[in-house]
């Protein structure tokens, strides 16, 4: 059973909750109240919907991938979140949270970013609304997603490098939370996925479910067929949650694809649902990568947005109840899928998204004849340099 809202402890059954320092708890309570109020207020929806239409470019199109469908022997549709302003689904969330920040009377925003897409989307919303913005980004990610770092700076955002841990998304989230503990009176933390303590997983899901709601209209059996299968990549899980949620509990097969990195057997991956176990990370009870003593392990993925040892708690809930299937794809398979979509359809997808496509390509035989919808969560411009470097290193 899908839950409209987590329970009054912020839980999706045993997952979620609020494992946060006391200093933040009053702000989390305020955020829950304020978001619930805004979400019940037609005025807030009007304001948000107008921005989503005129500024973000929603609804995003659904495109039938003609040549790739033929090649794979399936009926493949792409939900084009890459065509949303700033080039990924992340902006659906940041527009909503930035408007909420204004309602709460706060004027400073912080965020974490891995691939830089959430950072760019936050920087964009803040530029639009005149809010001060600081984005935490791991050192390693600053290097591999340099284009997005420059974009954030042009948008007037301060990018703060994070050197702790492996210098990736987990460390950026931790750094943002540490900032927030000190600045919570004036600052809102726009978290970038369906992760973190309640109310974030619920709020971000509500802001992202527009993807799946649009798809229901676009693939309604008249203009286009109903999907048999919907596939999305899972880092923190926001694009997957956004497209899955309206379909959870229906007869549509839902497949979430995590990062298998160098391969699950190497231990170097980001597959928290497939290969992790329950515990607490970043304020939430969920699946995570941890050792026997409960130390959180470093994740690995070629894709900065999937290089995270946790996942949103509602996905943990879906996994245990088998409402969604979760699987994984390696670095190598993902890079191949980038090239496949680029050469056959003229679309360069983000490395994150390429994981979902790679699964479809790999399973093409078992999917033969079926109608498959892929959440094309983002465009790949940011990854071009990284892929060039990889090819150079191989030669």
């Amino acid at each position, binding site marked *: 059973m899908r839950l409209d809202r987590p329970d009054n402890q912020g839980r999706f059954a045993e997952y979620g909750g609020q494992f946060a*320092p*006391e200093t933040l708890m*009053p702000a989390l309570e305020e955020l829950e109240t304020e978001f619930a109020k805004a979400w019940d207020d037609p005025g807030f929806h009007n304001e948000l919907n107008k921005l989503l239409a005129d500024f973000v470019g929603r609804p995003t199109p659904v495109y039938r991938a003609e040549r790739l469908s033929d090649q794979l022997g399936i009926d493949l549709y792409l939900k084009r979140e890459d065509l949303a302003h700033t080039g990924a689904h992340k902006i659906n969330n940041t527009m909503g949270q930035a408007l909420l920040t204004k309602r709460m009377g706060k004027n400073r925003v912080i965020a974490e970013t891995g691939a830089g897409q959430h950072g760019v989307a936050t920087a964009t919303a803040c530029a639009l609304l005149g809010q001060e913005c600081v984005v935490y980004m791991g050192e390693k990610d600053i290097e591999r997603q340099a284009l997005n770092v420059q974009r954030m700076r042009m948008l007037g955002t301060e990018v703060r490098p994070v050197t702790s841990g492996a210098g990736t998304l987990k460390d950026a989230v931790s750094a943002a939370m*540490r900032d927030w503990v000190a600045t919570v*009176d004036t600052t809102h933390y726009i978290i970038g996925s369906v992760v973190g303590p309640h109310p974030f997983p619920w709020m971000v899901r509500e802001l992202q479910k527009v993807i799946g709601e649009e798809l229901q209209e676009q693939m309604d059996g008249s203009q286009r067929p109903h999907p048999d299968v919907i596939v999305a990549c899972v880092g923190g899980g926001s694009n997957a949650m956004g497209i899955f949620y309206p379909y959870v509990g229906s007869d549509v097969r839902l497949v979430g694809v995590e990062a298998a990195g160098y391969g699950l057997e190497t231990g170097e991956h980001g597959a928290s649902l497939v290969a992790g176990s329950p*515990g607490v990370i970043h304020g939430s009870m969920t699946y995570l990568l941890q050792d026997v003593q409960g*130390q959180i392990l470093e994740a690995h993925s070629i894709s900065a947005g999937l290089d995270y040892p946790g996942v949103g708690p509602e996905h943990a809930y879906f996994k245990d109840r088998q409402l969604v299937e979760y699987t994984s794809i390696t670095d190598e398979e993902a890079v191949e899928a980038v090239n496949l979509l680029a050469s056959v359809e003229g679309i360069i997808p983000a490395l994150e998204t390429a994981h979902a496509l790679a699964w479809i390509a790999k399973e093409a035989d078992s999917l033969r004849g079926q109608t498959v919808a892929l959440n094309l969560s983002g465009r790949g411009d940011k990854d071009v340099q990284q892929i060039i470097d990889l090819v150079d290193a191989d030669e």
Partner: protein
Amino acid sequence: MSRQALAELFSRCRAENRAALLPYMTAGLPDPEGSVRLFVAMAEAGADGFEVGIPYADPLMDGPVIQAAGDRALAAGSGVEVALDILEQVVAETGRPSVVMTYVNPVLRMGPEVFAQRLSQAGASGAIIADLPVDEALPFASALDRHGMGLVLFVAPTTTEARLENVVQASPPFVYGVAELGVTGERDMASSHIGSLVARVRKHSEVPVVAGVGIATPDQARSAAAAADGVIVGSALVRRVMEADTVDAAEDALRVAVGELADAIRRD
């Protein structure tokens, strides 16, 4: 040791018109053996009890000094098991009531009941779990309670009246009064929050309030001790250990620093 040992410590300090000095130190720093010696040196210099820190890879409430200390301790082989061993030796050798300071995931991994059993065997008086607010505390508090210990709960400058009442009603062995917004680390100024935090708790209960976060210098400790029943100093002491080249040098630096803090928390 037990929760009772802590209660006795606070009543003795009240009688002596001073606050209790409860230093924080990461367990296993600079290595497991040297670590016990550091706690013993602090006890000899006037520490009344300890927060024994279980090193954790993702310490959300900690600033750069304790983060780096945790990484170094983990690299030197420390972890939950080693920290419990160290705690046991520290309590046995110093007789000072001690609590562990940890994050919730290692406790969940072991299970609250086993964790409480192990703490009790090691002679702990209780636990501080930095990312466990009162709302999620019940299973952990009950497990510690069953073993004669207690779960410390937090009150921060941002804590609402309703939340503060929940904290007091859960009857922790002491309330951790968060002296500063933000993570652990040294600050330039003395906290302006402690007086009002203690007064707010006192309206409901006589439970001891111990001030921590951002208290580093003897002056800051003196100012906190004027209102609070105890003072926690962490980063300033951990930094001295991180800067020392040998265990001997770390011991010497801690003796001086803890001695000065112990003088500062007398109210006469």
